[in-house]
């Protein structure tokens, strides 16, 4: 199992704990991640402004991976859906690929259409598998009640992900949490959007969207939220204090990235998983499973 590693632009600066823990658990599970300095913007932020440039940005990254002879593994769901969509379009539409290549050649690149794109968690589910992960658990997370949050772009548009998940009733992240011994809790509007994409357009609306989920997760009595997108992470973890301040409600709800939770169960030291870098303190949670 070897992939070109596409960390995206948000995780490397805003949620280093996500990238750090993903690299640690990948190593432990024999998943080889190859870095490239040539990767740049996936194209998502530009789609609203100019779809042509956005597709060129996606294709450029696919060409970098193709040069390495590897498929792409990303830890950002936005990058996953954007690059997977471009990969599909360019794989099946020869005319479009030719037009894109006309432009790419001017910057010294070409793309033949051979790269697949998968999110890190999908790779854990499909390539490693819940059974193998279960067999490697050193420290069961029994007693923890965890609320999974998939993030829109892990699921949708479902057609670009070969419908490997059900966008209305997703199950892969829950399955990956369950094998670690923790209990997954159901809550209202589980597939609800974090609002992160419009935080810079209207922060009042975006934060209200995030707050809804915090309310629902709290009502279900979860000890923590578990997610897999750095943008969702920034809404629920980094901005949780802002939401609390604006609304006079205290949540104090730890928000962990799945590789951090997985790493704990695999017996990796919490500091190596960057648990000290989470904004909402995770110490009470760690005490609960006596790590």
């Amino acid at each position: 199992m070897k992939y070109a590693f596409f960390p995206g632009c948000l995780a490397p600066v805003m949620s280093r704990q996500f990238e750090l823990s993903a690299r640690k658990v990948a190593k432990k599970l024999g998943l080889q991640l190859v870095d490239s300095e040539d990767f740049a913007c996936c194209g998502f932020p530009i789609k609203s402004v100019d779809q042509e440039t956005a597709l060129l940005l996606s294709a450029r990254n696919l060409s970098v991976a193709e040069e390495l002879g590897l498929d792409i593994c990303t830890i950002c769901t936005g990058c996953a859906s954007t690059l997977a969509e471009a990969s599909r379009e360019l794989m099946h539409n020869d005319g479009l690929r030719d037009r894109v290549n006309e432009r790419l050649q001017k910057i010294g690149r070409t793309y033949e259409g051979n790269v697949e794109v998968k999110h890190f968690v999908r790779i854990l589910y499909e390539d490693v598998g819940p059974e193998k992960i279960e067999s490697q658990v050193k420290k069961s997370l029994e007693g923890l009640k965890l609320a999974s949050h998939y993030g829109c772009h892990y699921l949708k548009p479902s057609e670009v992900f070969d419908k490997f998940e059900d966008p209305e009733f997703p199950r892969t992240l829950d399955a990956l949490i369950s094998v670690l011994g923790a209990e997954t809790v159901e809550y209202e509007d589980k597939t609800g959007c974090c609002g992160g994409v419009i935080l810079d357009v209207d922060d009042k609306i975006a934060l209200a969207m995030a707050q809804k989920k915090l309310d629902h997760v709290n009502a279900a009595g979860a000890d923590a939220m578990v997610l897999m997108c750095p943008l969702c992470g920034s809404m629920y973890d980094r901005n949780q204090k802002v939401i609390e301040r604006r609304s006079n409600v205290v949540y104090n709800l730890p928000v962990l990235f799945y590789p951090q939770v997985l790493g704990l169960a695999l017996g990796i030291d919490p500091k190596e998983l960057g648990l000290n870098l989470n904004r909402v303190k995770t110490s009470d949670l760690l005490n609960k499973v006596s790590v």
Partner: protein
Amino acid sequence: MRCFQCGTCNVGCPVREIEEKYNPRKIIRMTVLGMRDRVLSSDFIWLCSACYTCQERCPQDVRIPEVMNALKNLAVKEGYIHSSFAKRVELVGAQGKLFPVSKFDNTKRKELGLPQIPTENKEVQELFKLTGLNKLSSAEGGE
């Protein structure tokens, strides 16, 4: 467009749940009716959070987020661009990615044993010149 105005998009829209002024069903209707200027100059087209819930549920297979993207692309061509999106263009064009990487970030990464991140990408700068997006970013927030 095959839209028959059932409103399924509105019912599942997480933005509309908070702010009723955002009305994807109405935006689609106005578009079908050809109300070009009113749609392209409206603030609301910029509020789609791209969650794709509407697209998954639309009984007529209308790709609503793609319609929103197409409308926003047209709006940009007509000189309407929301300031936050002009900022996105500027950032991606200059450094190859949306979130700036500072020296401090790279120092922190080094401490954690993470690889250093480049602060610019020449190929992205070239691409922006090829498609003319660099002009938009140098216009400091568009029009």
